[in-house]
């Protein structure tokens, strides 16, 4: 084994194809996309060198600012919802339902495997006011609350979008954190109980610090997923009303493929990459602190 791993040719044979695939599929397109940021034009008419013009345009573009703001807003709201609901579900599985949690876990996980378009259509119908009132509006009206058209304004559309994405993904985070909670030794929990820690105190001082690593992984997963949201927005609101629910991904897609401006589209994509990288680095910076040491 040592002779194989010490042989450079063997290493090249083992890693070469994978490295080549990675280079062609990931690195070349990334470099290509970065190259496009310095050009204007499209594949039909051809490209002309534009220097830093696209970056200057991005700096002054109100639509890009609005898309960036929406991306952050959505990322924070949905990540908080996903991880919080996932954590509550995991606590429910471990401390309340215990062995009988399998059925509930399966049911709550079910929306994760449903196609986004189907879920979006369901939520459109749930919150519709035309041509018929949806179930959500019927229920609200039953309680004496009248909302009107959820999709007519930015606020209503945002709420439905967040509700939908939290609902469809909380099962995944529930299972992920559940796996982390199972790693907490029973002896530790038992000792804490004997010392008088129950309920919220047990969670605050024992469960939360010991599940911090899995919680951190969940937050990184969630933030990166939500900053790159595309399909659920496209299917539920199509970025509207107007461009009120348009995230950077959708704005980038439209700029490149609908408006035929590949250079500016790539510049928006670069901004998104920087945002994802920055947020991940910030989270990892915080994660260096050992939460179990207070």
């Amino acid at each position: 084994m040592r002779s194989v791993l010490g042989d450079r040719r063997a290493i090249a044979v083992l890693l070469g194809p994978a490295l080549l695939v990675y280079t062609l599929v990931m690195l070349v397109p990334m470099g290509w996309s970065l190259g496009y940021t310095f050009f204007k034009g499209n594949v039909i008419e051809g490209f002309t060198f534009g220097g830093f013009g696209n970056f200057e345009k991005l700096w002054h573009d109100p639509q890009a600012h609005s898309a960036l703001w929406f991306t952050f807003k959505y990322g924070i709201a949905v990540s908080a919802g996903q991880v919080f609901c996932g954590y509550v579900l995991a606590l429910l599985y471990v401390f309340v339902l215990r062995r009988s949690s399998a059925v509930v876990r399966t049911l709550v996980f079910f929306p994760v495997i449903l196609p986004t378009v189907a879920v979006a259509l369901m939520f459109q119908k749930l919150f519709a006011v035309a041509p018929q009132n949806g179930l959500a509006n019927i229920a609200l009206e039953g309680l004496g609350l009248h909302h009107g058209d959820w999709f007519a304004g930015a606020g209503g559309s945002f709420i439905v979008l967040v509700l939908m994405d939290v609902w469809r993904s909380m099962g995944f985070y529930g299972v992920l954190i559940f796996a982390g909670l199972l790693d907490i030794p029973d002896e530790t929990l038992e000792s804490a109980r004997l010392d008088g820690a129950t309920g919220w105190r047990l969670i605050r001082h024992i469960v939360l610090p010991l599940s911090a690593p899995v919680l951190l992984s969940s937050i990184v997963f969630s933030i990166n997923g939500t900053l790159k949201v595309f399909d659920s927005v496209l299917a539920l609101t199509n970025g509207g009303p107007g461009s009120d629910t348009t995230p950077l991904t959708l704005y980038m897609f439209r700029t490149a493929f609908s408006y035929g401006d590949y250079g500016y589209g790539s510049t928006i994509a670069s901004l998104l990459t920087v945002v994802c990288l920055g947020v991940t680095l910030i989270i990892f910076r915080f994660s260096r602190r050992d939460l179990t040491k207070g």
Partner: protein
Amino acid sequence: MHKTLRTRRIALLATAATTSLLLSACGGGSVSGSDVKAFTLTINDDNHIVQQELTALGKGSCAAQNKALPLKIQTLPIGNVDQKVQLLAGQNALPVQFAAGGTPQLTKTLDKAGQVLDLEKTLKDLGVWNDIQPAAVKTVENLYGKFNVMPYQFNIEGIWYNKKLFADHRIALPTTYDQLVAAAAKFKGAGVTPFAADGKDGWPLTRLVSGYLYRELGPDALQAVADGKAKLTDPAYVKAAQAIADLGKAGYFGKGVGSIDYDTAVQQFLTGKAAMFYMGSWELGDFNDKTKNRIGVDNVGFMPFPTVAGGKGSADQIPANVGLPVAVSAKSYTPKVGDWLSCITKNYGAASLKDQGTVSGFKPNGDTGTLPPLTRTVQDTITKTSTSTLWFEALFNTKATETSQTNAAPLVTGAISAKDFMTKVQTDLDNG
């Protein structure tokens, strides 16, 4: 030594296999005439008329052409057609026929890049040029600068109304915009939705804005914007957007207009739930279809967009278009494609009238059957129209078109002001 050679061979083989797989996956689908195996058509899924009629021709008058080169239709949601066309054009892989999309600018760009077939030359070479309606030729030339799309439809636009509802509520047919608003108020008071409108797609709402603009400022209102002589943010233009926003504010489009799609709007009108419906004559197919039209074809009337007091435009200046124009790929052209185009040009006009009750840009040679009265009304109106106008986004770039259509529902729900609506569109025009 032997081992080293084998290792090197394996490495070379693995690299070669991976590279060839990747290159074959990344390669574009470049099309040349000899590759054309089908008479392909990419079209938006909400346009049933062209699909149905071409399919019918493939089984009837053009059966021989269909046997030689089978018709193959691919449908896409309306918003995706332009994207797909651009991507395929970038790979030289355009289908034989493709919907010219939401904005004439894309077709002009494709034409400049040599991707669009010069149909005037082709149809003249095929000897069928005289089978095209001169009015359709003129309309296509106004939009694209030359004749390079198949005029599968030739439409006029206006307000279709429910005669029975007007009679039941004793409302006279409006001839001025103020009377139209007064009629809408009466209908709303009586519990009838005054206007059915597709706010989800937005364009049926922006066409009301252009209708008002043409009546207020005359038939050159939007050409002046395209030429840079006027801006949409000028007070007279904002006034038009404000007029339509006011219709929404008063609740004349019913509730949830932003959630209503095209089919639902048609259904609202054809089931008698709405009194009026601004739409093009391509809807004649549904109006003449007894299974869809529950109010009866005799109850459907047509009125042009009414005049605005003191305005420069008149009601006989009717918006006209070639419906959903379809371009032909220059790179996919073969003699078999020519046979299809020739057959379509000779037979589509009469078949469209007979089967769908809709008017096309082709001359109706042969048996058209007995035309429904509503179709005759449309034909008469087309004949009498001396000056036609375009639609709101006809001269806009793709981005301004999308901004206009996605912000139409917020305009009528009051989520954005008329001034903001026009500013957004004008900004995209300025930066386009």
